[in-house]
C-alpha cells in the first residue's frame, strides 16, 4: 500500500520533489505514510478503525501530546531541544489537582497556575539556554528532573479531582455531527471530541501561521539553519532562542493542563516518557533535531502516526506482552527508514 502510493507520487511529480524545500518534502512524506498506514489498518484490522470515533479518540488521547510536540518542534527548529515537557506536564497536573481538590479553588485559577508553571520553566530554561549559552539538553534535562521531583514533593500519590466545575469541564464533549456510530446495544452514539482537542487544533493553527507568516517564525528557521549566519543577517539570535524556549514552556503548561483535563487526576507518574513521544512525533513529522527544518502540520501528523502505530499494535491482539514493545519499535523503525530513504533518493537526484 505504502509502496504503491509512494511510487505514484515520486513518479508523477519527481521533478517537483527535487525543487521542494526539505521542510515541505518531509511533511509530504509523513502525511502520505500516515494515510497509507491508516488505510492499511482499516483493511487489515477491520471495523474498529473504520469508526470515526476511533480516529477522534486518537485525537482525544493525544491532544496534550500534540501541544507538547508543537512546542518541541519550535525549539527543535531553532536547533535546541526541550526534554522537560513531560515533567512539566506532570507537575502542572499535580499542582492543579492539589489546588482544585484540597484548596477547593476554581478552574480559571487552575488554568492560570498551569500557565504560570509553563512560563516559569520557559523563562528559566530560555534564559539559561539563550543568554548563558548552556547546552539545551542539559538545561532541560535538569528541568525534567526538577519537575518530576517537585511533582512528588507537591504530592506523592495519585488522586482524582472531585471539584465539580472541573469535572463538568472534563466531561464536556463536543459532538461531531454525522460521524457517530451504532453501539452493540443498538443505540446510536454521537462521535465527540474533548475540549483539549479544540485547544490542540487551535494551537496547531496559530503556530502554523506564526511559523509561516511572521518574522519571528522565520527567524526560528534562520537560527536553526545556521546560528552564526542568522546573527550576521541581522537576527537577534539570543532573543529568538529565548522566545522559542519560552514558547515551548508555555505550551508545556497548556499541554499539561489539557493532559490533566483528559485524565482528571494528578499523579507523579503522569506523562512519564512523554518527552520522548513528543520528540519522536516531531521528528516523524519531519522536524530535524539539527535545526532549521520542520513544520507544525507535520508535527500533528507525526503525533497521529505514532499513536496510530500504537493503536494498531494494541488492537492486533498480540498474545505476548513483549510483542507490544517489539512491534511498535519495528513499525517506528520502518517509518523512519522509509522517510530516510526517500530523502536519500531525492538527494541523489
Amino acid at each position, binding site marked *: 500500500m505504502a509502496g504503491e502510493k509512494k511510487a505514484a507520487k515520486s513518479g508523477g511529480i519527481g521533478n517537483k520533489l527535487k*525543487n521542494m*524545500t*526539505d*521542510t515541505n518534502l518531509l511533511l509530504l512524506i509523513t502525511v502520505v505514510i500516515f494515510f497509507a498506514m491508516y488505510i492499511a489498518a482499516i483493511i487489515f484490522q477491520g471495523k474498529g478503525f473504520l469508526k470515526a470515533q476511533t480516529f477522534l479518540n486518537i485525537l482525544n488521547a493525544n491532544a496534550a501530546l500534540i501541544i507538547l510536540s508543537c512546542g518541541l518542534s519550535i525549539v527543535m527548529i531553532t536547533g535546541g531541544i526541550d526534554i522537560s515537557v513531560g515533567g512539566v506536564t506532570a507537575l502542572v497536573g499535580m499542582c492543579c489537582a492539589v489546588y482544585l481538590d484540597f484548596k477547593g479553588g476554581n478552574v480559571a485559577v487552575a488554568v492560570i497556575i498551569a500557565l504560570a508553571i509553563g512560563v516559569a520553566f520557559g523563562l528559566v530554561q530560555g534564559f539559561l539556554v539563550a543568554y548563558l549559552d548552556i547546552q539545551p539538553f542539559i538545561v532541560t534535562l535538569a528541568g525534567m528532573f526538577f519537575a518530576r521531583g517537585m511533582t512528588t514533593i507537591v504530592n506523592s500519590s495519585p488522586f482524582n479531582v472531585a471539584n465539580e466545575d472541573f469535572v463538568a469541564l472534563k466531561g464536556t464533549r463536543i459532538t461531531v455531527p454525522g460521524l457517530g456510530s451504532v453501539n452493540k446495544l443498538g443505540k446510536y452514539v454521537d462521535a465527540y471530541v474533548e475540549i483539549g482537542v479544540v485547544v490542540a487544533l487551535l494551537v496547531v493553527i496559530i503556530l502554523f501561521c506564526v511559523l*509561516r*507568516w*511572521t*518574522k*519571528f*517564525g*522565520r*527567524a526560528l*528557521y*534562520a537560527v*536553526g*539553519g*545556521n546560528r*552564526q*549566519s*542568522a*546573527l*550576521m*543577517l*541581522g*537576527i*537577534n539570535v539570543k532573543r529568538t532562542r529565548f522566545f522559542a524556549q519560552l514558547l515551548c514552556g508555555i505550551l508545556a503548561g497548556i499541554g499539561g493542563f489539557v493532559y490533566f483535563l483528559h485524565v482528571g487526576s494528578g499523579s507523579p507518574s503522569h506523562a512519564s516518557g512523554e518527552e520522548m513521544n513528543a520528540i519522536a512525533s516531531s521528528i516523524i513529522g519531519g522536524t530535524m533535531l539539527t535545526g*532549521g*527544518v520542520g513544520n507544525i502540520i507535520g508535527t500533528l501528523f507525526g503525533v497521529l502516526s505514532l499513536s496510530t502505530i500504537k493503536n494498531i499494535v494494541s488492537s492486533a491482539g498480540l498474545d505476548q506482552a513483549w510483542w507490544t514493545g517489539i512491534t511498535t519499535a519495528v513499525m517506528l523503525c520502518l517509518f523512519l527508514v522509509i522517510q530516510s530513504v526517500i530523502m536519500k533518493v531525492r538527494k*541523489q*537526484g
Partner: protein
Amino acid sequence: MRNIHKSFPGVRALQGVDFTLREGEIHALMGENGAGKSTLIKVLTGVYGKDEGQIFIKGKEGEVAIHSPQDAQKVGISTVYQEITLCPNLTVAENMFIGRTAGAVQNWRKMNADTDKILKSLDIPAKATQQLSTCSIAVQQMVAIARAVDMECKVLILDEPTSSLDESEVEKLFKLMRDLRAKGVGIIFVTHFLDQVYEVCDTITVLRDGQLVGQFDIKECPRVVLVAKMLGKELDDTEEIKGDYSTYQGDETESVYEAKGLASNAGIKPFDFYIKKGEVNGFTGLLGSGRSESVRAIFGADKVTGGTVKMKGKSVKITKPIDAMRNGIAYLPEDRKGDGIVGDLSVRDNIILAQQVLRGFMKPFSKAETYKIADEYIKLLDIKTASADTPIKSLSGGNQQKVILARWLFTHPDYLILDEPTRGIDIGTKIDIQKLVLKLASEGMSVTFISSETDEMLRTCSRLVVMRDRKVVGELSGEELTQSKIMSTIAGGDK
C-alpha cells in the same frame, strides 16, 4: 573608526587601527592573509565587540554604539562577509529579506516577487523559492551581494565578494558598485585581486599584521608600491615565475594517471583524462562548467559511476577517497569550510590528518612527531597561527587554505589536485603557491591546477582541459595557451 583594538586569545588581531571612509568612494582594504581585514569589518558591524576604540558616523552626534549586526544595519551599514553567511535551509527569497523587513508579518508573495525582480536584474540564475543550499557557491555569493546591495545603506562592505565569481559576474558587480558610488554610498571593498582594485577603487587602506600601514589615494600608489606596502618587502615580478623552473618538457614518460570514460553521479559527462609525471595541467571553463566535479570524480569524492582508471600503467579501482590516497593522489577541495578544514581540531591535527589515515588506525604519530611535523609545515608555508594547537577555525581564511595544502603535501603524493588553491589568498602567497606547484612538478610530482584566474593557469599549466556544460570540449597546450584561444574554446565556435 579610530584606534581600534581587538585581541583573540593568543592573537592581537587589530592594534590601533584608524580607518576613514568618505561618502561616495570605493575604498579598498588591503593586506595579507591574516592582516586583520575581516576582523576590522566584523568589529565595525558589531559581530565582535572591540577592546578599545571608537566609531563615528556622519550625521550622528559623537560615537555610535554598534553592538550587533542589527545595530549596524540600523545605522545604514550593510555587509557581505567573507564566508558566505546565509542560511542554507531557507529559500533564496528569505535569505534576501530576512532580518531587514519591517513589521511582524511576512508577505511571501511580495517577497518572492521582489526577489525575482532583483535576481533578474542581476542575472542571477536562481529562483526565489529555491532552497539556498541547492544553489552553487557562486550563486549563493551573488545572493549575498544582492541582499546587501538591495538594502538602503550609506555604507556597503564587501569582504572578498569576488573570490568565487567569474569575470562577467565581477563586471556586473563593479557596475553596481559604480552606480552606488554615484549615489553617494561609501563602499569598503576587500579583495586580493590587484586588477580589480585598480579597476574600481578610489582609495586604499593597507593593513599589515593588525597594524595600519597607511591610507593612500589610488593614483599615488602604483602596484609595486602597494604590494611592497602589503608585504613589507618588494615582490619579484610575477611574470617571471615560470622561467624559474624548467617547464614540463613532454611526452617521454607514461601517464601517472589515466582515465577513460570517467563519470560520477554529480552529473558530468564521461570524459577521458591523463596526466604525466612532472606535468602541471588544469581544467578551465566558466563557473559551473564542471571543473570541480571532474576532479572530484578523479579523487573518488563523488560516487564514481563509470570509467576505467590506470595509474602508472596498472589498472586500479578508485571509488572512494581512500583508494585515491593509497594510489598517491591528493586533493585540495574547493569548498574550504565545508570539505577542507576540520574546524575544531588544531592546526597540528589538521596537518597530519590525511597522512594519519593513510598510516592506518593502529599507527598514530607520537605527540612529539606531530609537533615536529606541524612546525615544519607552518614554517615551510609561512602559516600565520598563534600555535600549532590553535583550532584551525580561528585562522584567517588564507591561512586555513595553507594548512590544508600542508596536509596534502605531507602525504607526499605523486599526483596533487588543487581546486582553487589560491582562492582568498593574498598576492604574495598566491605567487608562493604557484612557485611551489612548479617546484613540486620539477621534482616529479604531477599537479592538476584549477583556478578561476586564467592568467594564473597560464602561468603554471602546460596543458589545459577546457570544459563547457559539464563536458570536456577541448584541450589546449603549447602555443595554444593564450587568453583568447581559451576564451574562444570555452565559448565554442558554434554559438
